């Protein structure tokens, strides 16, 4: 025991340094983890505070989960979350690698930089702003898209109440916002490739296409795989801003825009079904945890340095 305190004392300066952060992690990461027990309770708010609310709510076992999975909501939100993320991962990978190769091959470097600057912009904007941008295109009576339809003699479309268009809209908006950023990541990897490889290929008479196919792409494969696996690890978490702001919380679109995160939020703030949405949250956390562990394990097997931990 004495050595323990002696060690504490010896490390006191460094311990002071981690202290604020450690307290933060305790309150904002570890305590909420304990709070997930409300998924097994019928939550009743108690004015005596946090502990009283948890302790005095009644245990209901798996009831919240039974309710959740007996509704069609559980299926809808799981399907939406998984399919959208899958589309984002696959299309995002294809387009950002293509764009990175295009940017790296442009003869005029200044133009290439200019394009990168343009593409990077959406990444810096919040989903609220992007929501307004989308509205300027999709507004029923004033939007640009309905005007364009009008030029071709077509009837205007009530975009914000027609669910069938939204899977495409969501994918396009997400790609629009993210491709610039991810192609710069891949571009950095391409620029890091040893130039002598290309010179050797040129001496052997390989043209540019052969160089791309046989040097650039194979050397990008590891980072492509790792970025993809890390994204797969997060496939159970949706981008709340995208699914909440861009469809403007339109009820008629819920079938195609409700994801686990928006479902949990609505349970907490609007419908008041705290138990059920806490159950959905815990379901997300558990499956999400398993997926992160699996994907990280696979990444670790491939390349130790790229693993998260």
């Amino acid at each position: 025991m004495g050595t323990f305190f002696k060690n504490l004392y010896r490390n006191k300066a460094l311990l002071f340094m981690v202290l604020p952060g450690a307290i933060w992690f305790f309150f904002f990461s570890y305590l909420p983890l304990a709070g997930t027990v409300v998924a097994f309770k019928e939550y009743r708010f108690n004015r005596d505070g946090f502990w009283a609310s948890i302790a005095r709510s009644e245990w209901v076992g798996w009831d919240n989960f039974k309710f959740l999975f007996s509704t069609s909501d559980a299926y809808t939100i799981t399907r939406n979350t998984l399919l959208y993320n899958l589309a984002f991962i696959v299309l995002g990978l294809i387009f950002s690698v293509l764009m990175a190769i295009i940017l790296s091959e442009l003869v005029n470097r200044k133009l290439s930089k200019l394009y990168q600057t343009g593409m990077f912009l959406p990444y810096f904007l919040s989903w609220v702003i992007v929501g307004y941008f989308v509205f300027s295109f999709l507004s029923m009576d004033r939007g640009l898209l309905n005007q364009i339809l009008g030029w071709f003699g077509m009837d205007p479309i009530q975009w914000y109440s027609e669910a069938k268009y939204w899977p495409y809209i969501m994918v396009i908006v997400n790609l629009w916002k993210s491709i610039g950023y991810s192609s710069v990541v891949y571009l950095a990897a391409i620029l890091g490739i040893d130039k002598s490889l290309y010179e050797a290929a040129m001496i052997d008479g390989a043209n540019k296409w052969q160089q791309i196919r046989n040097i650039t792409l194979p050397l990008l494969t590891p980072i492509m795989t790792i970025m993809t696996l890390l994204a797969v690890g997060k496939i159970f978490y949706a981008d709340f801003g995208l699914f909440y702001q861009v469809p403007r919380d339109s009820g008629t679109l819920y079938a195609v825009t409700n994801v686990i995160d928006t479902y949990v939020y609505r349970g907490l703030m609007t419908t008041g079904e705290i138990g059920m949405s806490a159950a959905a949250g815990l379901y997300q956390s558990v499956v999400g945890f398993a997926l992160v562990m699996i994907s990280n394990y696979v990444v670790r097997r491939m390349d130790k340095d790229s693993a998260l931990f």
Partner: protein
Amino acid sequence: MQMARKAEKAGKPKTERLKRKTRDFHRISPLWNVIFNLIAGLFAAACVFPFIFVVIISFTDESVLASEGYRIIPSKWSLEAYRYIFESGDTLLRAYGVTIAVTLIGTAVSLVMIALYAYAISRKNFRYRRFFSIFAILTMLFNGGMIPTYMVVAQLLGLKNSIWALILPLAMNAFYIMILRTFYSTSVPDALVESGKIDGAGEFRIFLKIIVPLSLPGLATIGLFSTLGYWNDWFNALLYIDNPNLVPLQSMLMRIESSMQFIQQNSANSNISMAALGSLPQDTARMAMVVLATLPIIFAYPFFQRYFVQGLTVGAVKE
């Protein structure tokens, strides 16, 4: 051979084609260069266009909007939207103030906390190094979720309707800690810390006088990440803020939107709803607010971009 054909298609004279042939292997053919320029250029334009479009709408005269909608070239321009905002601009000004305060305090708080934490766990002679590394890393793997977090912040910490509810939830991030830890261990040689110790400096002194100056690029990157995070945050305001005096910019834009929709959807009594709609900023004014909320980012953008790309490569050492 293929290259030569491509060059011919692009209309290069034969002699020049032959002359360039040796260089062809370095570059794509001129035709493909044009195609690549078109693809990248069009996509870049598509990324910037919506912002320009919103700027145009904000300068459109409200009276022509109803008849012609949002136009790329409206028939009548006007500064009315901006005049309206600056005359009745209390709300906007206050929201700006909240956002600036939150961004400044938040970035400072999170930088100090992250920098100290990352430094301590980068020190090899820190006895509890492993414990605190794992303590941070674990938080990247699980997530208590929105509801328990809400309960802790609102009920236990009592931060509802407090400015700290906008600051604290974003203050730490295990991912940034890992980036910065890697940065310290690759760019600050151990010998420097040792020599500082021999000279009799304490840990905090070493940190301030040796570590901070050497790791400025890394700190700048993390600082920019968190500045952007605070400036663009609306989620914490959505959960924790009801007090209209504490609403940040992004959240204010959101609220205007949803009250518009609420009135439009519940407009059984059209007199009342017309009056209520009249009290809200009109289309052009809302777009002008979007422009004003985005402008600081556009100005800081070249700066941001440089450090972000640098940050990607900082992370790439481990990431």
